[in-house]
């Protein structure tokens, strides 16, 4: 880089043209009496730290120890660099660079500071009894949120940088004595292989590293909850934190992990098990109820008992459309209502609900556009699809019911069964980081059943799930027996 301060500064100015927030402060270091300059981006740094902890000590404090840096600061994190590229990336990431006349090194002082928001309740994954802290857009803060739960030195963090332009920092967090090293290797190599401009969001990252991009099912868990991330880490999974993104990726996932919620572990186990079963039922309803309606009405009406058939026929007499069109009309209206509800600001959002409720629920039936039964079918499908705790899984199921409806319209019950067959075939061949997605059902793992369809008492859940193939499978002992009776 050279020794002369003025030439170095000239070079910096040349590199950072049209950068009005670049600040260069000239000063003389009190300790050695040499000339120096601080270079930083005003927008990415904490001004108070610069003034109080860098400029003040530099200007006021006396002689220094020869072995250490030739100046005084109160900043803890100081790095040295000699390359222009290092200097550039340090400035752009919010560090302050100290250039000293006659010294070939540049010193990078950690002064990062940018607009942040306060910790808020998670928006998508609300919970009744879980913690009310959600992840934020600052990666280091997210790490802190996780670390608070796990003050364990086995909690390792690997730092990577992804994106040629964005240079997004990505951290892999895992418990070194629990997580399977082979899976870690797979994850690391997939992350390292990404070659793009920039990663804006964790959802984008997922698309680059997932096993099958042509699947409607999420193959990694995206969560905004520190507590569920920690619970997954303890089960032997790995978390990937992406800077600037409030959701954290957890891998590997299985199909059933999307039906587990953090609340399951903080409510009584019987209730939690009941709710768990309810979710699987909801999954089936959301997937095939409209399709079954179509199949029964247009093909196999002999399956329906006489009285029910009569009332269905009666309510359908005024409807001029075939069942598929009737169902599509309603389902698509419902999807539009859902989507518009998300985009609208909260006060206006209610209007959509009222309009939808009145127009679709009542008037459409009175006008003879859809039948009563259809409204019931669509409404229960909608409710069922929102029970599933994972938003990604919920949307996958909502999408899948459309092909199911079409195949049911074409082939009746047989169509539904073929559709389910294709679904099963797809699910068993799907993998997440190379581990089977259908586990613990296919391949069957008896010990994982304790936390699949039901959630047995935590004191009996002494093992980590086998589907993550953890190094250390025991997570506690049978705590009921250990206490003993007096």
């Amino acid at each position: 880089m050279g020794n002369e301060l003025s030439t170095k500064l000239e070079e910096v100015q040349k590199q950072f043209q049209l950068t009005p927030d670049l600040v260069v402060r000239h000063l003389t270091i009190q300790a050695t009496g040499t000339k120096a300059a601080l270079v930083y981006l005003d927008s990415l740094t904490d001004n108070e730290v610069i003034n109080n902890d860098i400029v003040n000590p530099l200007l006021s404090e006396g002689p220094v120890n020869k072995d250490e840096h030739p100046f005084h600061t109160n900043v803890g994190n100081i790095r040295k660099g000699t390359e222009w590229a290092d200097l550039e990336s340090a400035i752009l990431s919010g560090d302050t660079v100290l250039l000293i006349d006659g010294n070939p090194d540049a010193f990078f002082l950690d002064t990062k500071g940018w607009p942040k928001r306060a910790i808020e309740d998670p928006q998508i994954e609300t919970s009744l009894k879980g913690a009310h802290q959600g992840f934020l857009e600052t990666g280091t803060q997210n790490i802190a949120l996780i670390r608070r739960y796990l003050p364990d030195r086995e909690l390792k963090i690997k730092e990577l940088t992804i994106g040629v332009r964005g240079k997004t920092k990505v951290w892999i967090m895992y418990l070194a004595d629990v997580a399977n090293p082979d899976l870690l290797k797979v994850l690391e190599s997939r992350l390292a292989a990404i070659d793009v401009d920039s990663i804006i969001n964790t959802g984008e990252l997922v698309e680059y590293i997932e096993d099958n991009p042509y699947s409607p099912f999420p193959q990694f868990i995206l969560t905004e909850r520190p507590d569920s991330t920690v619970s997954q880490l303890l089960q032997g999974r790995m978390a990937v934190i992406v800077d600037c993104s409030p959701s954290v990726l957890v891998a590997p996932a299985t199909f059933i992990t999307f039906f587990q919620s953090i609340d399951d572990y903080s409510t009584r186990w019987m209730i939690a098990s009941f709710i768990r079963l309810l979710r699987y039922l909801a999954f089936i309803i959301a997937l095939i109820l409209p399709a079954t309606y179509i199949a029964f009405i247009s093909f196999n009406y002999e399956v329906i008992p006489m009285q029910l058939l009569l009332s269905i026929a009666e309510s359908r007499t005024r409807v001029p459309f075939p069942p598929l069109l009737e169902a599509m009309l309603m389902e698509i209206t419902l999807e539009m209502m859902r989507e518009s509800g998300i985009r609208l600001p909260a006060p206006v959002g209610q209007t959509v609900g009222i309009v939808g409720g009145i127009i679709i629920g009542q008037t459409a039936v009175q006008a003879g556009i859809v039948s009563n039964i259809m409204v019931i079918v669509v409404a229960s499908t909608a409710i069922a699809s929102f029970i599933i705790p994972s938003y990604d899984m919920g949307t996958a199921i909502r999408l899948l019911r459309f092909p199911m409806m079409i195949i049911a319209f074409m082939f009746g019950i047989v169509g539904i069964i073929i559709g389910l067959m294709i679904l099963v075939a797809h699910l068993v061949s799907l993998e997440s980081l190379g581990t089977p997605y259908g586990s613990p059902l296919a391949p069957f793992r008896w010990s994982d059943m304790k936390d699949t369809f039901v959630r047995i008492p935590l004191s009996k859940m002494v093992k980590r799930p086998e589907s993550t193939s953890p190094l250390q499978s025991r997570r506690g002992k049978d705590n009921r027996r250990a206490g003993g009776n007096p």
Partner: protein
Amino acid sequence: MKKYAKNEISLMQFIFIINGAQVGTGIMSLSGELAASSGTDGWMSLIIGWLLNLVACLLIIQVFKRFPDDTVYDLLKRLFGKWLSLLVVIPITLYFTIFCCLVQIKAMLYIKAWFLPQTPDYLIMFLFAIPTYMVAGKGLRILGRYNELVFYLTAWMPFTLLFVLKECHWLHLLPLFKDGIMPVIRGVEPSIYSILGFEVLWIIYPFLKYKEKATQGVIIANSITILAYIMATIICFAFFSPDEITSYHQPLLSLLKMIEFSFLERFDMIFLAFFLFVVSSSWISFMFMAAFGVSQMVRKQDHSPYVAIIAVLIIVMVFVIHPSWNQANEWQKWSSRMGIGVAYALPLLLWAYVQVYIRFHKGDTR
């Protein structure tokens, strides 16, 4: 050298592949056939069939004992050389292909008869081909997972038969051996036809992770199959009178028709639709075996293109011939005879040959 280590299957998958291959459409008509050949003692023929199956399975395992990493194709090549082995390999592959095709055709005929009389048969076959390609094209491990999941999804089905228990007349079954032992022997033939399928063992054995559990695996697989068959047969016998039952083509379906719920008028249709899952695990297993056989014959690693080729050939065949029930039954007779060759005669012959072979080639078998 373990060349199949990549696709190793667990004991459960091993069991369910055998079981899945065995249970096909046969169960629907089995009780009628048994009643025709041996009266109400027919269920005992199933037990004999089960014992025969076990013997054959154990023989196959014995054959492989010295060559644990070989499929039947590798083994035959090792024993008889590249060209001579084709004499056996081609019929085996052909048998798997024909059986796969037959199971699909039968399933298609059931569907046409009960659900979709207007839909062209090749279209139904095309629908079958999609999940078939998705599973069989992927490899044995995926097939194992599929069969396993299908087993759990359909495990409730035999228990629905219990709904008719209160209308059963158990006296129909008595006395045992009412016409002596001969009718029971005569019933062995139809019962063997419906429990063919364990011959997939010829191919899946080297993929099993823990070979020492193979015996346990085949016993469990065959027992699950036979228990379901015996249960269905006995309930059919007890429900219908001995004369009445022979007049039905598919007594099991006629029996299911009697089950009625206040919320579901025709339970048999739901049952049959779900039964398609069970049947699919049979034809998909055979499809894998067939495609694997072809890939071995042409010495290619990847078998998935052959799944597609066989599937297309079957669809074309159905499109040209439009098979009827009678044709399907006729073909079934022929293929079952081939099956007896592959499943019972081949193990015996190979076992005998291997005994001689290892006498002469001591030491260089491994």
